[in-house]
Structures are given as structure tokens and as C-alpha cells.
């Protein structure tokens, strides 16, 4: 596998030559709705497609993650994982029929993460056309229950129950091409429900307003002092509540995340948040329920880790400029178990969380070549030191 860097640019053209197959895989899988906790149909299609492509072993793990294994040439090298999450933000009743233009694919969930899953399913065919064999087994995993309340359950289970050591992991995300994530922040994702008990209608004017109570919570969260080091912050992400314009809101919900480079700091801030909830609840005589939706420990590779350095070299070879940032995704599960891993983007896109999300087709071929390059680097032993 040595000398793989020089081959990468020629790989782009070869990969482009089977663009119909890659796009077909993206559509076949992406057009199946797959909201978190309801990924079964997409998981079945994922497996069916891998078995059609004659992947050596196609199976479902104990948590219903579909997996394909391409057997390597070595009996001793641990497997390399390439994974993409199967779930999307879009409800099953939304029209999932994609549109294809001359250089783009449009449809709900295409950026996050249907294009990633379609590319993952295409890898066996891409290896075949590039005439690539790896020493390690390549494990292609479509992981379920990643987003939001899924709390990365699929990947947690897959890694936790895998019986052998894992050589390294590559997480595929639809966008943006050039992203290179190699560290993840510590995070606790919370939801606060404020409920006002209701009785007779005449009581209404004496009751507190759930939205205003949450407004007070927000004010107090914003007054918390966030340290610069370790870098920490609270992101207020979602709010909903009330029934109609002229009626006091009896219920409201606030969603937010505590993020920090240090898991310890996240826990410390979470304690402060709990104190705020208790205080506001007491002051307004309302019930504030604080729920933890998901949590992650901070974990990172160093920038000079051989996997990061090799990935940067691959990207430079393909004319890509690496952009780094923390990732609160499957990456953190690999890293927290001391498995070197990176997250890579496939192409450029827009309207990410909208029904008309769009990805560009042409940059995708470089995005795929980049994954091949990193796989070859790992297989050549960069993570084995």
C-alpha cells in the first residue's frame, strides 16, 4: 500500500467512471425515510445492497446496526471501521423522492447523511474498480440511533461489543468536503420541561407563564461564567411552548447543550444548571424537569498523531484544504475508547436541515478518493505505532 498518495488523483477519474452506480446507491438508500429509532427499512436496504455487491459477510449486530465485512488478506491485522449514521432528521411522511440535476442531488436528508450512507455502500464496488485489497478487514457499518435522542446508541453498542481490537475508524458525513474532525468536546444535551398545573379557568390570570419561566432560566444560564480555558459554552438550541396567542402558556420546553474541551468542566457546569433549575422552580412555584438527552466525554487525537498527519497529506494531495473543529458524533465514541479515528466530509452542500437540502455531485469523487487514501494510510500501518 506504500506510495498510495501518488495514485490518488488518478483514482478520482476512475471513481467518476462509475458515478451512475454511486448515485443510484445514494438514491436507493436515501429515498427510504429513516427518522431516528425508525431506521429498520433503511438498514435492510443497506444490507440488501451490500449483499448484492457480494460483500463477504453481511450481518446485523445485536443492536440492529447493519454491517458488511470485506475480508482482508491478513489474519492478524485488526479491522478498520468505516461508518455512517443511517438516521436523518426527517419524518417518514415527508416526500423523500430525490431530484437529480446536472451537478446536484436534492432531497431531505441528503446532506445529513444519505450521501454518506450511499457512498459507504458503494465502497465495495469502488475497491473492485480500483483493484484494491486491504490487509485489514474493512467493516462497513451503517449505525442507527445516532442523532438527538438516539444519543449515538448504535455506534456505542457496535464498538462496545466488537470482540477484537479495532485498528482505526473513519466516520463519513455528507458535508462539507475538507472537514477533518479529530477531537470531540465533552457535551451534555439537556431538555427542560416547564409545566404549570391548571385548574379552573378563572385561575389562569394568577398562574405563571411557562414561556416566561423558561425565559428566566435562559437569562440565568447566560449569566453563568464560562471559562476560556478549558473552552466551554452553553448553546441554547430549541424552544417551544404555548397553545394560542391570547392564553397563558401552561407548558414549554427548552433544549440546550453544555459543551467543553473538558468532561470535568461539563459536569461542573451541569451542576450549576441544576441549581438554576431548582432556584427558578422554587421562585415561580412551578415544576421544572431537567432531562439529559445525551452526553459525551471529551476526547482527542493530537494534531501530530500519525492518522491526522496522514489525513492532512491525503487532503493536500487532492488539493483540499483541511478545516478542523470539534465533532460531537460517532467520532467521540471511537476516541473515548482510544481508537484513532477521524470524521471526513464527502462534498459541498446547502440547505442542510431543509427538505430541499442539496449536494454537489462533482466534488464527491474527490471526497471518496480522500476516504480511500486515508484507508490506505491506515492499512499501511500509520496507526499501529
Amino acid at each position, binding site marked *: 500500500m506504500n506510495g498510495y498518495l501518488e495514485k490518488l488523483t488518478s483514482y478520482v477519474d476512475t471513481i467518476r467512471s462509475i458515478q451512475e452506480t454511486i448515485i443510484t446507491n445514494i438514491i*436507493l438508500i436515501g429515498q427510504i425515510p429513516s427518522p431516528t429509532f425508525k431506521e429498520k427499512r433503511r438498514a435492510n436496504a443497506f444490507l440488501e445492497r451490500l449483499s448484492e455487491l457480494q460483500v463477504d459477510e453481511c450481518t446485523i449486530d445485536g443492536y440492529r446496526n447493519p454491517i458488511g465485512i470485506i475480508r482482508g488478506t491478513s489474519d492478524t491485522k485488526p479491522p478498520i471501521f468505516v461508518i455512517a449514521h443511517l438516521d436523518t432528521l426527517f419524518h417518514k411522511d415527508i416526500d423523500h423522492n430525490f*431530484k*437529480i440535476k446536472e451537478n446536484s442531488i436534492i432531497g431531505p436528508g441528503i446532506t445529513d447523511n444519505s450521501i454518506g450512507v450511499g457512498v459507504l455502500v458503494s465502497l465495495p464496488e469502488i475497491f473492485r474498480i480500483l483493484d484494491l485489497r486491504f490487509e485489514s478487514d474493512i467493516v462497513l457499518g451503517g449505525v442507527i440511533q445516532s442523532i438527538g435522542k438516539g444519543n449515538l446508541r448504535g455506534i456505542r453498542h457496535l464498538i462496545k461489543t466488537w470482540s477484537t481490537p479495532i485498528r482505526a475508524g473513519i466516520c463519513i458525513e455528507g458535508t462539507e468536503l475538507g472537514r477533518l474532525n479529530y477531537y470531540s468536546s465533552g457535551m451534555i444535551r439537556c431538555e427542560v420541561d416547564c409545566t404549570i398545573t391548571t385548574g379552573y379557568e378563572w385561575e389562569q390570570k394568577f398562574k405563571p407563564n411557562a414561556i416566561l419561566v423558561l425565559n428566566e432560566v435562559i437569562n440565568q444560564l447566560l449569566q453563568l461564567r464560562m471559562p476560556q480555558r478549558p473552552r466551554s459554552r452553553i448553546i441554547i438550541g430549541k424552544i417551544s411552548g404555548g397553545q394560542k396567542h391570547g392564553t397563558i402558556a401552561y407548558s414549554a420546553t427548552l433544549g440546550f447543550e453544555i459543551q467543553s474541551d473538558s468532561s470535568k468542566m461539563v459536569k461542573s457546569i451541569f451542576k450549576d444548571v441544576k441549581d438554576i433549575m431548582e432556584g427558578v422552580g422554587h421562585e415561580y412555584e412551578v415544576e421544572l424537569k431537567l432531562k439529559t438527552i445525551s452526553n459525551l466525554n471529551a476526547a482527542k487525537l493530537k494534531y501530530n498523531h500519525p492518522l491526522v498527519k496522514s489525513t492532512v497529506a491525503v487532503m493536500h494531495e487532492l488539493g483540499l484544504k483541511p478545516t478542523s473543529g470539534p465533532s460531537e458524533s460517532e467520532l467521540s465514541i471511537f476516541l473515548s475508547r482510544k481508537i484513532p479515528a477521524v470524521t471526513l466530509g464527502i462534498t459541498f452542500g446547502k440547505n442542510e436541515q431543509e427538505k430541499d437540502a442539496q449536494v454537489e455531485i462533482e466534488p464527491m469523487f474527490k471526497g471518496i478518493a480522500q476516504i480511500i487514501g486515508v484507508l490506505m494510510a491506515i492499512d499501511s500501518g500509520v496507526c499501529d505505532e
Partner: protein
Amino acid sequence: MSKSWIETNTFHYSDFNDLDNLVKMKKSKNLAISLCLPTLNEEKTIAKEIIFMKSELMTRYPLLDEIIVIDSGSTDRTLEVAKAYGADIYEADSILSRLNKFKGKGENLWKALHVTKGDIIIYLDADIKNIHHRFAYGLLGPLLLSDNIKYSKAFYDRPIATGKNKIRPTGGGRVTELVIRPLFSLFFPELTQILQPLSGEYAGYREIFEKIPFPIGYGIETSMILDICEKWGLDVIAQVDLDKRIHRNQDTKALGKMAFAILKTFFNRIEKAELINLKTEMFDEIIQYYLVKDEFKPDTMKFEGFERPPMIEIPEYLEKYKK
């Protein structure tokens, strides 16, 4: 009425899922297969159809020898998109250009006979939102696996009763249920077994298509069934359940125009077959009314009912295929 046809000649696309076997049959019969997509402003859906068919039925399973797009004069980017994804594109007017020019789906299908090279031709509408390669291999299945079947036609939404007392709707559209089925029941009851006679997806052997006339517009599906049945009998026809098809919904006025063209084609056929005797010529304009500022205004559209003769009567075609 033959009761067995619907039982013996009705299939589900999954009966033909073994694509390796279809490829084997194609090779053993030494056949070429063409896919034809007639278009008019289909830039939103055409790319997906071409990509699916190329990937699955050309690259992975070599069933199709060519994909051609025949266009009636699109004003959007249909042709550019089709070309970008590797289809052979033709403007209908440029084929057999010495002949009078007409616009219509039937015209495109007829001209496809002149430019395709396949022994079997698959015609698929280009506006299918949920396109899948089953639309093509499902129609090919009966043609390749049976020696008798020469023409296969799609139906959708699993309309067959699944057992005793389990009756489900046939899934026919409004024009089928309000126009075609009553007419078939009156004049050709055995044809009512064809569940969706107006479906726009069908495939057949060239030797069949080249010997029948093609109405240039909406009447093409109806005339095809009537003519094939008259010449070769119902037993050469198969119908295949292709599951779900999502397409554009048409308003009632548009369906009225479609029904008018179909009725005209139908009456021409039954008059020729001496099943009725019309005492007067039929008119060739449909008149529909719109309410414009409290006033009813007529909107007329002419359907002259032109038909192309069997392609085998065209000298250029005879020359090209050395008939």
C-alpha cells in the same frame, strides 16, 4: 370470456428479480434491447431514470443495449440533462424529417422505432418520481422468459385480490375507470382483464410494434391494445405489477382532454371493426368552459386524431432494416 388470461398472464415484478437469468436468456435468444424515454419538459425526473437504468441494467447487469430520449420540443433543460448522463438524445422533428411533423407521445414512440436498434423496445414515461430499475426488468421478464408473450404492460399498487373475499381496488386512474373500462365492458369484455390499460409503461418486440399504427397523442395506449389483440390475440400480452408509481397528478380538465382523444381513437377502431355504424362524422374539438369574471368562456382544443401508419410501411425504415 376467457377467465384464465388474468391468471396465466399476470405477473409481479419480483417474479423476475433474478437478473442474471434475464441476462442469460437475452444472450441465448441473441436479442438487443432498447429503452426509450419520450420527453417533454422532464428535467426534474429524467436524470434519475437514466442513472438508475444505466447503473443497474447496463453496468451491473447488461440487459439494455441503449437508452434513448426522444423529445417533443422541451423548453427546459431536459435534453442537456439527459445528454450529461449519457443517454442518446433525439428531437422527434429531426427523425424522418421529410414527413409532416406532429407533437405527441405516440409520435415519439413511433419515431423511436426508426432510431433504436433493439429487437425489444421498452417504453417508459419520463415523469416517474419513484423510478427503480424494476420498471424495466419487470416488463422485460415475460418477454424474455416466455416464447409466446410479445407485449407486456405495467400496472401498479398491487391491485390483485389476494384470496377469497379479499377484494382490493384495481388502481386504475379516473380515465380508466370512467371511460376505458366501461367501453371495454361494452365492446371487448375480455380486455377488462387488463387492469390498467392506460399505464404509460410497456415493452414489446419490434416485430409487433412495427406492424401497428400509432396515434400521435393520447390514444396510443388504447389503440396499441386493440390492435395487438386484433392481430395476434390476447395471449401475446402480459401484465406486470410494478408496485407503486408516483407521477404528476393531472386536473380534471386535462383528463377530459385525454378522455376525448381516447374516445376518438376507440370509436375509430370499433367503426373500422364494423361494431358500430356512425351516421355522421365525429367532431374533432373538445369544448370546455372556464368561469372568467362571472362569465363562462369556452376553451376549445383540436384533436384531429392523426395516426402514423405501421412503421414497416415507411421506405426509409425498410431500407434501414433491410426488410
